């Protein structure tokens, strides 16, 4: 029991998140008279956000950067691989390889520009996002995008096993893998040191620039692969299919208590942050506020969390 209490105390923000989630669910149910959305769908969409959030966490951790191009990176992979797979399972490997290549390319451009030209990552990835959006336009050329995902993707992304959406199980596997990688291997300290004190890391022999660029690559590869899963979930590809995940993927990291300046790698926080966000979204939707409430909520919460976090470290 003591161990659990200690863990909760140390990771106070995670505790806060969990309490928040519970509260929101209770309020939601009270307000809507029990018609609050199911736990299952909340977890499903939160899982998507959480996986995008993993990529954001990596680049926030190593250098305080964020990636706005994850949405259209996923979308363009969806669009092109839809035709590739065309509803069959045998082409799925081609699709996966294609996604990885796209992710590497986009990640390299984003990473090299941010790290070597010292441009703000927000501006670089925003421009990249627009370029990718344009490429989607080119590909669709005004028509709707044809093709269907391989059934296996639909199973993972769209279907449930009992109460739980299958994507949740995938998320759990990812969480286990990430926690292992970020706690038991060299990568853990390398990532964290670049964000915590890049100079000290550099003087200790860490290749800071390389680590940062590779983080971008990882982020965009994850986004690209998510494109396959989103396609599996929706059954078809269209232009704005991934845009609504961009902001939440970043907000989830901040709400999860990780410093926007870098140096922290608590993925569980990110997952919980994603769940908080999704619960909030559902609250707004059930109140009838739709998109507007969602965006207002995201922006407000992100701003408040930023202020709260800054207050903790008293500066000038």
């Amino acid at each position, binding site marked *: 029991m003591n161990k659990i209490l200690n863990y909760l105390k140390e990771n106070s923000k995670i505790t806060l998140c969990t309490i928040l989630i519970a509260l929101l669910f209770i309020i939601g149910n009270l307000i809507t008279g029990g018609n609050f959305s199911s736990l299952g769908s909340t977890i499903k969409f939160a899982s998507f956000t959480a996986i995008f959030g993993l990529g954001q966490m990596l680049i926030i951790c190593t250098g305080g950067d964020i990636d706005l191009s994850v949405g259209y990176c996923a979308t363009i992979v969806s669009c092109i691989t839809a035709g590739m797979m065309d509803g069959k399972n045998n082409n799925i490997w081609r699709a996966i390889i294609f996604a990885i290549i796209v992710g590497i390319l986009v990640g390299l451009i984003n990473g090299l520009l941010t790290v070597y030209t010292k441009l703000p990552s927000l501006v670089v990835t925003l421009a990249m996002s627009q370029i990718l959006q344009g490429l989607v336009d080119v590909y669709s050329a005004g028509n709707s995008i044809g093709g269907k995902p391989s059934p296996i993707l639909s199973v993972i992304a769209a279907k449930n096993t009992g109460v739980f959406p299958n994507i949740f199980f995938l998320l759990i596997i990812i969480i286990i893998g990430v926690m292992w990688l970020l706690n*038991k291997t*060299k990568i853990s300290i390398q990532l*964290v040191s670049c964000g915590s*004190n890049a100079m*000290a890391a550099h*003087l*200790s*022999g860490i290749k800071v620039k390389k680590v940062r660029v590779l983080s971008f690559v990882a982020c965009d590869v994850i986004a690209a692969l998510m494109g396959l899963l989103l396609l599996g979930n929706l059954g078809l590809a269209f232009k704005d299919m991934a845009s609504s995940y961009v902001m939440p993927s970043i907000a989830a990291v901040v709400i999860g208590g990780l410093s926007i300046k870098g140096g922290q790698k608590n993925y569980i926080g990110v997952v919980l942050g994603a769940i908080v966000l999704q619960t909030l979204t559902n609250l707004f939707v059930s109140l009838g506020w739709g998109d507007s409430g969602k965006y207002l909520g995201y922006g407000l919460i992100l701003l408040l969390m930023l202020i709260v976090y800054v207050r903790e470290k008293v500066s000038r």
Partner: protein
Amino acid sequence: MAVIFEAKHIVKKFNGVPALSDGNLLCHSGRITGLLGANGSGKSTISKCITGVYHKNSGTMTYMGREVDFKSPMEAKRAGIAMAFQNLSLLPELTVWQNIVMGFETRKGLFLDDKDAKATAKRILDEFVPEFDYHRTVEELSPSEMQIVEIVKAISQQPKMLILDEPTAALEQSEVKSLFKYMRLLAQRGVGMVFTSHRMWEVMEICDDVIVFKNGQVVGSIDFDKEEKNADTIIQMITGEKKIVSVPRIYKSIPEDYFMKIENLNYNKILHNITMNIKKGEIVGIGGLSGQGQEELLLAIAGNYADIKSDINVNGQKERLNSPNKAIEKGILLIPGDRQRQGLMMDKSIYENVILPKVALKKEPFIIPKKRYMEECIETNQILSINSDSIACFVSGLSGGNAQKVVMGKWLHVDMSLLILSDPAKGVDVGAKKDMYDFVKKLVDERGISVLLYASANEELIDNCDRVLVMHEGRIVGELKGKEITDETLVELSMKGSLTRREARDNV
């Protein structure tokens, strides 16, 4: 001559450690008072207390007959006491004349009176350095030009008292002469000045009297109107009583087996023609007044400068050490000078900090061998007597001394040939300091490594080094061996920037 300002018994502590325990100063109108003292003697601290950069803990300050306690340099400047800072207070993207009047801009109607501002700048510059293009932005200027602007800025509001904190450090000889000419002009106009410098000849030339600081107190003052200008007297005041060494140091001779040979190393106008050697098993010290390029020399050898163009001979092979990895591969390990900014991840635990270099090494396994690393970390803690409950403690909670030990501990289990220490004992308590240096000497004895040490406090060099090279303005100006290393010789070499080697003094 009227007394403009008097400071009595000023005390200033940082984290309980007194930087100034009894500061006294008198400033007369029309007189130039020099402040002298070794690094950390308190001479800078008192100036900063006077102008409100620091808030004094106790003591009185009287200005023009009233008691004062300025909360900021701007407040002091408005009252008539201006200071030209060593760490410049200039805004890089703004022009010279905009910087000169910053905070004191005059208005013509609704708008700023730029004409008046430029006239102010021109007026002073014409008397001080004619033909100075004050339309340039500060970032376009050379370091000496920036210093000139900083001084002009201080003078711009016609202060009654002017404090110049090491103004000549960045200036060329001709510019120093111009500065002195201008200072004499100001003195004629009744301005009282306080002047600090590390160059003895300057102090003797321009000052009317000198106050000497040591260990946070005033240990003497000389009025040049009444007494003779004698450099030796002043040096003796700075170094204090001749030290009675309780345990005479034994200097063993070290075989001529060289680990590193450096010839004509240059870097970026900061280091000039550095030629030196380091033998295996030798502790080489770098001395001199602070800011003479010592830290930069250490960083250069540690591979920190990617754009360095000079080679260093390591173990018989010529190497271009332009990345920390290259240096670390050769066993050249750096304990940097600023532990918070360069040495530690403050928000992480001791354990995570200690294993950082290991994680960067190719030969260490991908999966962290947690058990082994934890054992090594605990061992490190014990060897260095790091005072903490567990290795999971955050580094930010440690005292300066213990934090410094963690910085050192990082390298214990990495192959070591040359340990570079950049002012390791700065801000470290006496006990931890002794532990650190004992440990370093043990490493030398046990592993036969070499050590390159820069310390701003001379006694650390005296107690630990086999040889000391003194630096001045980016060059090596002298070498002291064995018994020659004393406080006196170090101070002399540092101050005079002499190029010849001093004769060995008689042992005490």
